[in-house]
């Protein structure tokens, strides 16, 4: 009898719960100061212009995207994802094609435009160093991989993504224009030489904590995180030599409920104005080619797009194609 009551209760609650109907546009990103800026300069501006409210969600989760698309119940309309994932997910049929009659792609950095995605912002992996903690700072990737000249712990991005493998190959003497296809054997051999001295960071905040506390006095960082760290009073030296760029992308999951509004949102978010304001606030670079003219000259000098001399562009197409293979090998190597 008890159990019948439970069933009755359960089925009523099931009926009552129904669908969480959200007519607002849902924008999903990684949280933190980055998403705060995206909210202020993209979403709020979009709402003011179009009268469509934007709900913020996060953090981005690829497992969630896949589950939503497969279940045919997609609650995210626009998602900020990593560039190589965008290419791969587009090919895997998880994304909507973007409507380039709404989004003006002629002004967008072509490095980050595909049928399914446009850039969101871009950043560089640079060499950061806590000047108060050590006598000399590594200037090149080769320095960072040299434990004789620069003894001590160094920190790198934990997850499988463009950046560390390229850095290892550059440190091993591979020419910047000969990186792709990646020589994985060589990269892992190089990484083996410093493995015992690596502390991995798994979130931007952790990388800052490691550097500030001198737990790892140098390493490879997202440039925006170093800018923010310097603002809090830590003496940070940044080396832009062979900075490795990678981008985040904006995508629309397949079956998104507010597809048309999503396209308009992306058009707004990638406009020169929105991109310039976002870049000013975060220290990441704009992907709209006109945006830098709207920005403060001094500020621009701290952005990756002013560091193009020795810049290396991570090849998103290559990464998208080999994402799974590299990832599997990467995590297996880490666990060894």
């Amino acid at each position: 009898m008890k159990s019948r009551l439970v069933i009755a209760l359960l089925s009523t609650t099931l009926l009552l719960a129904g669908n969480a109907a959200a007519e607002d546009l849902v924008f999903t990103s990684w949280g933190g100061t980055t998403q705060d800026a995206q909210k202020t300069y993209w979403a709020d501006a979009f709402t003011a212009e179009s009268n469509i409210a934007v709900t913020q969600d996060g953090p981005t989760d690829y497992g969630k995207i896949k589950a939503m698309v497969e279940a045919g119940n997609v609650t995210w309309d626009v998602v900020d994802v990593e560039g190589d994932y965008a290419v791969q997910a587009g090919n895997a049929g998880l994304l909507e094609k973007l409507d380039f009659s709404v989004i003006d792609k002629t002004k967008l950095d072509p490095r980050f435009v595909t049928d399914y995605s446009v850039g969101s912002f871009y950043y560089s992996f640079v060499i950061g160093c806590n000047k108060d903690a050590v006598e000399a700072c590594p200037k090149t990737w080769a320095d960072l991989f040299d434990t004789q000249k620069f003894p001590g712990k160094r920190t790198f991005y934990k997850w499988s993504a463009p950046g560390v493998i390229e850095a290892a190959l550059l440190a091993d003497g591979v020419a910047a224009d000969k990186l792709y296809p990646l020589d994985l054997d060589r990269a892992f051999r190089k990484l083996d030489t410093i493995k015992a001295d690596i502390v991995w960071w798994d979130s931007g905040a952790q990388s800052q904590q490691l550097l500030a506390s001198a737990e790892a006095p140098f390493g490879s960082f997202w440039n925006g995180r170093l800018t923010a760290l310097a603002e809090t009073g830590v003496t940070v030296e940044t080396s832009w030599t062979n900075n490795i760029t990678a981008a985040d992308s904006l995508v629309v999951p397949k079956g998104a409920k507010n597809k048309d509004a999503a396209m308009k949102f992306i058009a707004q978010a990638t406009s020169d104005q929105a991109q310039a304001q976002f870049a000013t606030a975060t220290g990441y670079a704009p992907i709209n080619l006109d945006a830098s003219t709207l920005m403060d000259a001094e500020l621009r000098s701290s952005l990756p797009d002013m560091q193009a001399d020795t810049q290396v562009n991570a090849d998103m197409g290559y990464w998208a194609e080999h994402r799974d293979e590299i990832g599997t090998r990467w995590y297996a190597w880490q666990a060894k």
Partner: protein
Amino acid sequence: MLLDFDKLGGLRTALIALVALVCLFLILPIVFIAALSFGSSQWLIFPPPSWTFRWYQDLFADPRWLYSALTSLKIAAIVTVLSVVIGFLAALGLNRGRFPGRDFLRALFLTPMILPVVVLAVALYALFLKLGLAGTTLAFIIAHLLIALPFSIISIGNALEGFDRSVEDAAILCGASPWEARLRVTVPAVSHGIFGAAVFSFLASWDEVVLAIFMASPTLQTLPVKIWSTLRQDLTPVIAAASTLLIAFTILLMIVAALFRKGRKA
């Protein structure tokens, strides 16, 4: 004599020393968190350059902290009640029943504890999307109930093992209905098990983050989700401030409970 505090002799000193050390171990990170919440270093450097209330101001300036704490409290309270009731019934059934497959059932009931939570999270998320339940309070409750229930079954089951069934039977012989006997004899007798079940169930929900990340929606966030995303993104000592307030609140509750007990005795 091993169970008599006053007759332990030298052993007593050794045991007290150990307990003191364990207490120190347990309290060290808590004190550290409290200290960090007043430190001026955003990067958790200790000792900090100076002291500040800034993180508390930040905490109160963002209503999402309070809101997520209330959400957590609500969900954890419902989960606790359901977990204890369902867990008590299940433990009773496992304890009293003599049917084939009983051990298998017992093992089955505990599997949600073993399975990596992330698997359960993904699997449940996919199911809730199909049912249209994703992002609702009900989804949260079901998910947390699944991982809370094993604690109840273990804790209450343990207590029932040590309970002499004939006491309940005696009550029935004296004229009580089976349920009356259970409520008035068995439940009080296993109250320490029920208390343990309630504490563990509450914490299983209150402190759970992996399932919560999947079950959360923009408008429905628990405290651990808020802490998790803040930790990963900004690592601000606001987290330490929030934790410190919770600790202070807990201490306050304990003092009130102690005073209440004293008042009743007098």
